[in-house]
């Protein structure tokens, strides 16, 4: 994602083993989560790469017995949020506020790939298209709640917000998704 990288120390054997296992077991889930968040392969690759570098650097802070997937989703979510903030100055589009869901009309949440590429690839998926219309926070909560099937409590921990915020974001996001899908179905 082009985020400024901090220095990396050479690995210890345990650290290298930890990273190897993390990428082997959770690389696919992490990459798919990143892909659904960003909506394009290039950013998803960068995001997943940054996430595993973060895993590598912070491996000692992972608590055995807890969910590794929740941990790395939290890392991905934070990195993505940081990246959006970093890009905010470079793109004219604003990150939609949570309490102001976007109207269906072509506004996209800081997508960086050309819209033509996106439409060409996913036009057959009205739901995916609708998902891309959500704000980044709404999309995150839908992914975590409906696709990854995390509880409100777990999502709140991953996203670093309250359960009430998770609930309201999910309700708004789903209401918007329904409207977008219904409109897309009518238009088609």
């Amino acid at each position, binding site marked *: 994602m082009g985020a400024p*990288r901090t*220095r*990396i*120390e*050479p*690995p210890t054997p345990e650290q*290298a083993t930890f*990273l190897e296992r993390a*990428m082997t077991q959770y*690389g*696919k889930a*992490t*990459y*798919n989560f990143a*892909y*659904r968040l960003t909506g394009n392969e290039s950013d998803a*690759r960068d995001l*997943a*790469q940054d996430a*595993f*570098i973060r895993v*590598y650097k912070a491996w000692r802070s992972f608590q055995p017995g807890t969910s590794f997937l929740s941990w790395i989703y939290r890392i991905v979510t934070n990195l993505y949020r940081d990246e959006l903030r970093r890009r905010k100055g470079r793109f004219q589009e604003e990150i939609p506020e949570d309490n102001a869901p976007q109207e269906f009309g072509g506004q996209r949440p800081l997508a960086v790939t050309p819209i033509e590429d996106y439409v060409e690839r996913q036009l057959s*998926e009205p*739901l*995916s298209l609708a*998902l891309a219309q959500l704000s980044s926070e709404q999309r995150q909560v*839908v*992914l975590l*709640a*409906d*696709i990854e099937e995390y*509880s*409100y409590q777990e999502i709140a921990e991953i996203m670093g917000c309250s359960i009430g915020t998770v*609930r309201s974001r*999910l*309700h708004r996001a*789903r*209401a918007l*998704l*329904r409207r977008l*899908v219904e409109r897309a179905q009518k238009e088609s």
Partner: protein
Amino acid sequence: MTDHLSSELLIDYLRRELPPQDDALVHVHLDTCTACRREYEVEASLTEALRAAAAREEVEFPSLVAARVWEEIRNAKPSPLAQIAALWRPLVALPVAAALVFAVFLVGPMSHSGPKIAASYYLEEHAAQQAQNPLTERGPAASHFIETSALDSDTSTELADEADYGVAATGVIDAVR
């Protein structure tokens, strides 16, 4: 719960996030209210559609990502602090090691010199006393002194030699006198 259920309540019910009592109330209501039941099924179908879409679009973890991660780690250089520490380590370690060796060199003999000095001191004192008494046996008395007072360790032999040396020294003193 005579009114229709809100979509928020239905979503929470769908996700099993309601407290047991509310969950039971919604369950009962859905059995009797067709409109709410229909609304619930729409919400459920949205969730199913999202999961199905995600499953269809699922892709493998690109090996390129793992390769880039490892490459970044391989190219990692220690931080300036770590580099300074690595440079500093021999600069500190060498003088410390040298100081330790020197200290061992100094202290090592001293650690053995305690009893030796004490023994030789007593031997010389004893020999001096005996030198004033020509009737006394010198050598055996000195050796006996060592055996009984000095040390029941391996150094007794060494000290016995020193005792002989002490006697010999006393002899020299006598000769001078």
